């Protein structure tokens, strides 16, 4: 494992001066070389603090960070052979684009020739060729972002750190840039740690997603795993949208379980953990996992709200005491039900995931 975090804990004295706040509470992570790992979570979950500890701007209260087998806790940021792209880009306002990108190479006192070549190469990579002499205040947001990226990449670092680099861009640019970043990262094969609270970004970019909450890791996995088999209710709720349906285990065996829910029995894949028969469980039912107007319905629902969004039709369906949000993807949409109508629905069983009741 290339970049290893071992039981990292970070405590800060709290604002009022009384007591302490634990921002990061025992994080352990193994990152493979060449992977892009995203730290994902709501504000205040500790992801930026973790990133800053990796970078060296914060000193872990407890725990170790190992890079390629060597402990780097005691190394100051400028000796860690890592690069960082900041949320505010942090472009040097008094240097032009070329000088900004060349900064790190100048610190290392490389030759003029080498600097010119390397900067030109990386500027071509981020498609900024021709902008060498521009001042930062003459650049658009997207261009500044690319300068920040180029400046980090030209150093050929062992690890690339990115702290919400896209949050200051508008939606269209954000989409564009995130595919760019992924393309470049894959091409250069740089191990990267990416911090964001936007789960769409996380899902698009990552090899591994680390979902964090209140200083702890809730789950580590590929986007698919994290979406289809969330480890906790928090993860299920944070990634995408989820309906939580209460049920009881009637029977289990052979890798599947029979759960009684919504007044019917559904056959779903077995849960990750051991759950005794008869226990109450929570089913994670994503909006696309409910079939509307089914011929073999599990239950009959009343339409509480209907909205036609173009690519989907969304319903809020009342079944018993559950309110399910359902998204129907069908380009033709023959019928759009009105409020108050009753519809037969069926759960698409092999997509549903079982969580023990917390």
């Amino acid at each position: 494992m290339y970049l290893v975090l071992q039981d990292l804990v970070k405590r800060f004295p709290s604002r009022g001066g009384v007591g302490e706040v634990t921002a990061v509470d025992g994080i352990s992570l193994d990152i493979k070389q060449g992977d892009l790992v995203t730290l994902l979570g709501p504000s205040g979950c500790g992801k930026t603090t973790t990133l800053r500890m990796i970078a060296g701007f914060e000193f872990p209260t407890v725990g170790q960070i190992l890079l390629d087998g060597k402990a780097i806790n005691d190394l100051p940021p400028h000796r860690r052979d890592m690069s960082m792209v900041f949320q505010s880009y942090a472009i040097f306002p008094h240097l032009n684009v070329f000088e900004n990108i060349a900064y790190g190479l100048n610190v290392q006192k490389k030759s003029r020739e080498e600097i010119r070549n390397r900067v030109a190469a990386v500027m071509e990579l981020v498609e900024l060729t021709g902008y060498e002499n521009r001042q930062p205040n003459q650049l658009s947001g997207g261009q500044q972002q690319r300068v920040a990226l180029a400046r980090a990449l030209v150093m050929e670092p062992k690890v690339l750190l990115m702290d919400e680099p896209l949050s200051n861009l508008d939606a269209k640019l954000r989409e564009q840039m995130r595919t760019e970043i992924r393309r470049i990262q894959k091409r250069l094969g740089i191990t990267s740690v990416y911090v964001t609270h936007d789960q769409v970004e996380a899902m698009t970019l990552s090899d591994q997603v680390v979902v964090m909450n209140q200083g702890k890791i809730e789950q580590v996995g590929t986007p698919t795993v994290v979406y289809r088999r969330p480890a906790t209710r928090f993860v299920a709720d944070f990634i995408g949208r989820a309906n939580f349906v209460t049920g009881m285990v009637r029977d289990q065996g052979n890798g599947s379980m029979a759960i009684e829910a919504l007044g019917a029995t559904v056959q779903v894949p077995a849960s990750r953990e051991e759950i005794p028969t008869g226990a109450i469980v929570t089913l994670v039912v994503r909006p696309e996992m409910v079939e509307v107007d089914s011929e073999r319905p599990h239950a009959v629902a009343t339409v509480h709200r209907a909205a036609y969004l173009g690519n989907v039709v969304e319903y809020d369906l009342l079944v018993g005491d559950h309110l399910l949000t359902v998204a129907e993807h069908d380009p033709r949409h023959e019928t759009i039900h009105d409020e108050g109508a009753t519809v037969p629905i069926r759960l698409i069983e092999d997509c549903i995931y079982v969580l023990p009741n917390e």
Partner: protein
Amino acid sequence: MAVQLPGFERRVEPRPGLRTSLVRRYREFALIARDPVLLISLLYCGLFLFVFVVFPLFRGTANGFLDSTQSGPWFTRLSFKYIARYFDAYYGPYSRQVFTSTLVMGLLTATGGTILGFIFAYTMVRCNAPGSRFIHLLALVPTVSPPFALALSTILLFGRNGLVTAKLLGMEFGPGKNDIYGMDGLVMVQIITFFSVAYLIVRAMLERLDPSMEEAAHSLGAGKLHIFRTVTLPLLVPGIAGSFLLLFVESLADLGNPLFISGNVTVLSAQIFLAVAGEYDYQKASALAFVLLIPTLVVFLVQRYYVTRRSYVSVTGKPTGGHITVREPWIRWPFITITYLTCLLVVVLYAAIFYGSFASAWGVDYTPTLHWWRLMAARGVESVLDTTFLSAFATPLAALTGMIIAFLVVRRKFSGKDALDFVSNLGGAVPGTILGIGFVLAFSTVPTFVVGLLFVLLAIFLARLALPNNGRMQAIVVAVAGGTGIGLAQLAPYLGQSGPFYLVGGAYLLLAVAGWLRRRAGVRSGGAPPWRTRLLAAMGGYVLMGGLIEFIAQPMARISRSIPPGFWANFLFQFSDYLKTFFQTPLPLVAIIFAFLSLLVLDRETGRSRLAITGTLVALIAVMCFAGKPLALIGTPYIILAAFAVRSLPASVRAGVAALQQIDPSIEEASGMLGGDAQYTFRKVTLPLILPALLAGLIFSFTRHMTSLSAIIFLISARWRIVTASILSEWEQGGVSIAAAYSSVIIVLVLIAIGVLYYLTRRVFKGRGDVDLTLGA
């Protein structure tokens, strides 16, 4: 379907025990200690502030409780004599009267000044007055002129024999008639002198007021007056309150104006001055200083902690609110009129000063003449040269220290950061007379405690960083080397007056030579690479020059006496003094720098030689701290330099803080990630970005130095004279026109300096940095 609410109330754990928090504080310092440059900066600032602010303030006020007529240790001499005077039957009424007058003066000035400042600010920001550039400049002139310039011109114009009152209006002043002297004249002069502080603060707040708040109130149906009352004014309260308190403090600290124009009214600052200059009673002066300190300190604390914390308007943001204009003429014109009238008054007052210097005999004969200027050139050149030289010499010192403190306060976290910030502001906020007395009491004789503390801290610093991980060795080195050094220090005076310089300078040069010889002999541990030998040689050379400069200065002085008396003779004589000042810096202060340089010298030495060299260097630091009469600075120019630096420090710190706060910290972190260590980042990134503010800090410091009075009035001597004090003595002897000439010179020099600042920031930096003039206030 809701997203989990972010957990803002994390489990706040109970307060860790004393031991854990001590350990954590130690670790914080250990982190700072990884960076010796940072540590020495912290040490330097801390020591500077302790030696030149805290210690003198303490001595200055505590002395009020010690009976100076007796001798013996302090606890046998406690006396509350002067404090008791406030309550006894004989002295009581007068003492209480002085105290009351002081407070009344402060309140009246603060109220009047804030109102006038508000009117100015409102006019400038919202009333679209024609000629606003000029109004702004005029409003700022009082902040850069000598403290009593306006008192002087008020008397010239409105005094008993004033141009306006006597000549134009034909008024006569006999006993019982109300003339300009007294509380009314004093308050009027103070208001005109200080209102610009309020103006700048309120203006800054008005400009940054978000117009959408008033627009929202409009859309809810509120009329203009209602909005002003319920929205604008409440939002401005922190600025107004801040101005009020600041003006109160400035008024209390003012010495020049009361001495000129307060007439029969006595206020505390004048009383303190008279206790020293008239009665030579330092205990009384200190007791009074203590009494003056209390309201000053209370108001200062309230202003910092209560008012600034409650500010709702972002002070670091760019001005956004300048687009509301008032159109109603019944609001506009009164404001504009008052503003114009005040400007007119300011112009007239300053014109009076300039013209006064040219009048043959003010009050009698107004024909212009150069007589007084020629007289001043003959008599007063020394004053002017001394003041300019000392102001200029102190300026880089103050600006640099201010920048270091600003950097530490903004960019680093450590225990005691708030204390550092507070004390650095304290130096400029307390009335100068208190500081002046403190300096005299603290530095007339050797302050052994301070010198001892200085040595101990520097020795520990050097030992710990030079011999890390070896506690026992560190202690041994400090003890042995320290002892040797102290012993040697006692021998130094036998080498003559410049003994310490020769001893220390010679020792460093010897070390340099030894290093050079080792390198030539190709010793395994490398000997010293060339730059280290050169560094040692430079250190030794500088100190040695302290002694050798006499051989240049004395002949110079002799030559100056042999050429015909006049401007050049004076100049040459003074210049010889300036040369000496440059090289004869008090050794304990040089020791601070040398302690850090010693670390550089030790770089890459190992084993025995490292130990030996460390020991020698510690011993040399001891000699520097204890030889001769360390830090007995009264009578030297250095005490004046220190006073200047302490008084202008807050302005430099504020300029530095404002500049650093505008730099996104991630820019410096980005430089760190790209491989630049703290020094590289500072040189290549931070410094270029704060250069405009640094420059502004330099100019404001210079201004403050040139116009100081209360802090340095007790520190001048026969050899070192300050213009402001000269003005005072000329005035007392009736030399009105000479006083006016001196004042004009200072005003012109200061205006030139400010002009240079404007030019440089506009043309050279092309507005890369926004220089905020409130910082000069």
